[in-house]
C-alpha cells in the first residue's frame, strides 16, 4: 500500500500544469483531489513517474451562472458542490448527486474535474452530468477547447481528454425547477453504484428531448439511455420507456451483480427516476 517512486510537480497555474504534461508526456498524471488516482497508485495499478499537482492553482473552485448555463470550476470539491446555493437553485441534481459520492472524507477531497477526467463507468457525478448535457472545457498547449459531455466519455477509464490537457471547467444547462432524480443503487451508503440512473427534465430541449437519462455502470463508460430518451420524446409512457433503458448497454458482471441483474436494475431504476422526476 505504498506507491512506487514518483516525482511531484506543484503547478501554480493551469499553464504551468499543461507545460509539465507536455514535458513528461504519458509518464505524467494530474493530481487533483487524489481520491481515484492515489488508491490505484497505492495498489500499484497505476505507477506514473510524475504527478502534476493542480490543487494549489488558485481560482479553480467556483459555481456561477453564466447566461443559460452554470459554470463549475474543475477544482470544485464534491462537498462544495453539495452545499452550493447557486447549484441548488439552478441545477439541483448536481448537489444531490455530489452528496452521494463516497463518504465525507472523499467528498471533502475529490473534485468534479477529477471524477470527470478519471472516466470511471461507475461514478456518480459523470452520470448526472451526462444526463444534463453540456460541455467540458479543457486547456492544452494550443489553448482551450470545448468538448460536449456526450462526446467526452469514450470507454473504460478512457475520455476525450488528451494527455497534455487539463480540465478547467464544466458547463451545464440551468434546469431550475424542471424535474430530476438520481437513483443510486448500492449495498452500502459509501459504495460505488452497482447501477445508477440520472434523469433530468429539460426546459429548452437540450439533450434528448423532454428528459436526459444517463446510466452508471452499464457499459465501459457512463452512457445515455438513448432508447428511453427517444421513447419519451415519442410520447411513450414512463413504464414503456424505462423498459428500454438497458438497450444498447453492455454491463459488466461482478460479485454484486451479473449482467441480467444489472439490466433489470437499469430498467427498474430508470422507471423510478422518471416517476420521481415527473412527480417533482
Amino acid at each position: 500500500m505504498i506507491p512506487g517512486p514518483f516525482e511531484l510537480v506543484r503547478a501554480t497555474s493551469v499553464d504551468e500544469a499543461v507545460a509539465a504534461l507536455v514535458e513528461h508526456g504519458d509518464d505524467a498524471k494530474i493530481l487533483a483531489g487524489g481520491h481515484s488516482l492515489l488508491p490505484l497508485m497505492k495498489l500499484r495499478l497505476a505507477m506514473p513517474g510524475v504527478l502534476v499537482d493542480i490543487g494549489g492553482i488558485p481560482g479553480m473552485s467556483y459555481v456561477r451562472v453564466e447566461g443559460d448555463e452554470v459554470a463549475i470550476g474543475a477544482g470544485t470539491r464534491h462537498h462544495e458542490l453539495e452545499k452550493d446555493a447557486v447549484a441548488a437553485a439552478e441545477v439541483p441534481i448536481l448537489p444531490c448527486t455530489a452528496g452521494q459520492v463516497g463518504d465525507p472524507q472523499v467528498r471533502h477531497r475529490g473534485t468534479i474535474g477529477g471524477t470527470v477526467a478519471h472516466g470511471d463507468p461507475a461514478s456518480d457525478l459523470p452520470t448526472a452530468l451526462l444526463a444534463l448535457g453540456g460541455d467540458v472545457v479543457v486547456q492544452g498547449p494550443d489553448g482551450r477547447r470545448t468538448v460536449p459531455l456526450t462526446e467526452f466519455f469514450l470507454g473504460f477509464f478512457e475520455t476525450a481528454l488528451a494527455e497534455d490537457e487539463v480540465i478547467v471547467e464544466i458547463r451545464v444547462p440551468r434546469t431550475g425547477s424542471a424535474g430530476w432524480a438520481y437513483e443510486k443503487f448500492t449495498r452500502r451508503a459509501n459504495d460505488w453504484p452497482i447501477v445508477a440512473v440520472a434523469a433530468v427534465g429539460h426546459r429548452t430541449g437540450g439533450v434528448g428531448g423532454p428528459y436526459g437519462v444517463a446510466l452508471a455502470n452499464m457499459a465501459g463508460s457512463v452512457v445515455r439511455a438513448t432508447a428511453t430518451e427517444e421513447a419519451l420524446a415519442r410520447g411513450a409512457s414512463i413504464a414503456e420507456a424505462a423498459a428500454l433503458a438497458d438497450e444498447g448497454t453492455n454491463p459488466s458482471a461482478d460479485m454484486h451483480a451479473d449482467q441480467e441483474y444489472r439490466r433489470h436494475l437499469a430498467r427498474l431504476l430508470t422507471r423510478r427516476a422518471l416517476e420521481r422526476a415527473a412527480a417533482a
Partner: protein
Amino acid sequence: MSILGTRVVRTEDALFLTRGATYTDDLVDDRLTGALHATFVRSQVAHGRVLAVDASAAREADGVVAVYTAEDVDLVPIPPGRPMVPPAMTRPWFAGDTVRFVGDLIAVVLTEERYQGEDAAELVSVDIEPLPAVVTTADALADEVLVFPEAGTNLMAAFGEPAPADFFDGCEVVVRQAVVNQRVAPVPLETRAAAAAWGEDGRVTIFCSNQGAQQAKAQIAGWLGLDPAVVHLVTPDVGGGFGAKIGADPEFALVAWLARQTGRPVTWVESRSENLVGMLHGRGQDQVVAIGGRRDGTVQAYSLVVDQDCGAYPRLGPVLPRLTVLMAPAVYAFPKVHAQARAVATNTTPIGAYRGAGRPEATAAVERAVDLFAAEIGMDPAEVRRKNLLPAFSEPHTTATGAVYDSGDYAAALDKVLAAGGYGELRAEQARRRERGDVRQLGIGLSVYVEITGADNGLGAGESAGMEVHPDGTATVLTGTSPHGQGHATAWAMIASEQTGIPVDRITVVHGDTDLIPRGAGTMGSRSLQQGGVAVHRAATELVELARQRAAEQLEADPADLEFDLGSAALGVRGTPGTGVTLAQLAEQEPLLVRTRFDAGGPTFPFGAHLVVVEVDTESGKAEVLRVVTVDDAGTIVNPLLAEGQRHGGIAQGVAQALLEEVRYDADGNPQTSTLADYPFVSATELPSFELVDMATPTPMNPLGAKGIGESGTIGSTPAVHNAVIDAVAHLGVRHIDMPTTPMKVWRAVQQAQQEGTH
C-alpha cells in the same frame, strides 16, 4: 451503593479518542532504534509448484539489507499442533516447493526504510507452475487434488458418524436444506504488526498485536526452539482482534528470528490488502440441516452435518466444528439430535476463530431449520420455538451432545423480545403489506440462542490476577486477560475498587507483558470477565485480607475485630474511631501486593432472543434493517455501558454476515475481496439504533454471577436477520436464500419462486 452494575464511563476513551493509543506500529522504544523493516513476498497463486525464487535483483535494490527465502531458513516447519490433524500437514516458514494459498509466504525483504521494502519486494522474481486449486469443501472432500499429497487426504479432522437410516422415522414432516455459513474476514481496524529486538542479555523482546501475550510467547518460543525464559513478549494497545489475533502468527516469529539473524531490531506492519489475504479468516461452513416432527409443531429429530473449510494450513479451523457439534442441540428439547462434522484443507487463507467461533454456526443452522420447519407446516415461527424450547432450569442441564448448561430460561427471553418488539402488531403490519401487494415487504426474523463462553481453551478455564497498593494510595491491577476494545481497564478497576475502596481513577490496569504477568490465558471466547474479572475480584479480596493481617499486627488487635472502611480504604478496630490504618500506609511499610488465580468450575452458557425487522424492496431485492430488538442474558452485569458496547458490536457483525460480508474466491482460488472496496464490511449507515432489553440470570459458576457477553450479539443477530430477509419474501414462495442475502440473490430467489409458482 456498590459501583458494580453502574454505567462507569470507559477510562480508556480519553486517550483513544484524543492522542490515540499506542499500537505496535506506533511504538517509540529505545530497543527498536535503527530497526529494519520487513516486507513479505507472498504467493499470487493459490496452488502451485515453486520452480524458482530469484532474489538477486532485490538484494541489489536501494536500502535492502537482506532477503530471505525458503533456502535461507533452517527452522523446523510449523506442526499442525492438533492431535487429530495429520502430522504431514505442516506449514513451512517460506514456501520452497509448494504454495498453498494466495498470500502464502515466499520471501521477506529487510530494508532500512519501509517504502524501500515494497519497491524491493516487487523485484523478487517468483516462478510458479500452477496446479489445480482446491477451493471449496466439495473440492476438498473429493480428494482428487490434495493440498498435502504426503497426508494422502484433505481431511484434517472428523467428528461424529452419519445419522442412522431410521433417524427421521415416525416424523410427519421432514425438511432438508443445504445452508452456507460463508467465509468472512475479521477486518480489525489495526492490521497485524510485530517488532522484535534482542538484548545483550540474550533475551528477545517481541512486541505484537494479539489477544494473549502468554499464549503468543509460548507459541513463538516453541516454533523457534527458544527457552521460554529468554522471550519477553509485550502486547501494546490492540485495535480489535475478533478471534483472529489469538496466539501468534508465523510472521511474528519470523520477525523475532530475523532480528537475531541480522543482529538488528526488526519491525513489520501489514497493509490492508495484505491483511485481507494474510490474516486468518472466519466461519466457512457448508452445512446440511434436516428437521422432522409433527404437524402440531413438535420437533422430533434434528440433524446437522458440517463441512468446515480450514484453509491451507491448520489453525483453529479443525477445532471449530467441534464447538458447532457441541452446541447443535441449542435451546431446544428435541428428543433426537444428530451432529457430524468434517474439517478439510483447501487452497485458501487459513481459517481461525471469528466472533463466536463455531457457536454462531450451530445457532445459524438450527434457527434456519426451525424456520424452515415452521414454514413447511404453516405455523408461526415464534409458536414453533415456544413449543420446543427447553423449560426454564436452575440446575445444570446436560444436552444430547454432552454440554452442561448452567442456567437458563429461554422461553422468558423469547417472550420478552416478542413483547418488546410488538410481535403481534408487526405480524399484522406484515399481513397488510402482503394483502396490498406492496413493493416493500416486511420481514420478521427470530432467533433464540444459547452459547458456551469461558470454555477451557487449553490453558485452563481460569485466569491470573494481581493487585498492588502503592504508598501514594494508587493501585495497580495485573491481569492475564488481553483487552483489545472490551474495556477491561474500566471494568477491572471497578471490581478492584468495589473491594478496596480505592477510586477507579486511582487504579491502573496492566496487561500483556509476560515478564510482569507470566501466566494468562488471554481474551477470547467471551471469557474475560467471568474468569479474569473474577480473578481481579479475588485478588482485591485477598489484598484486603492481607492488609487486615498486617494492620492487626500493627494495631495489636485481633484481625476479626478490624473492620474495613471502603470510604477511606482503611482498617480500624470496630467501635474505636481514629484507630484506622489505610492501605496506603500499610504499603509504605512493606509492599502490599497479592497474586492469585481464579479457576472456574466450568464454562457458562449465556442465552437470549433476537427479533429483527427488515424491509425488502421486492423489485430490487435489497433488504434494509429497520429494527433489531435483543434480549442478551449474560448473568450479572458489572458495567451496563460496556455490556451494551459488546452487544452493539456483536449485533453489527451479525447483521454484516447476514446481509453483506463474504470472502470470495474464483475457481482458481484467486481472492476477489482483497481490498475494502470489494469486501463490504458494515458501517453505521447500514444499521438502525438497537433496542436492547435487559435480562440477567446469574450463573452459579463464579462469585460475580457473570457470563460472557462478547459474542452473544453476533450469535443471536446473524440468524435473526437472515430469517427476517427470507420471511419478507416467503409469501412469494421463497423458502431459503443463503447468506449474505445480497440484493441479487434475493431478487433472483423471488424471480425463481414466481416462475415455479406459475408452472
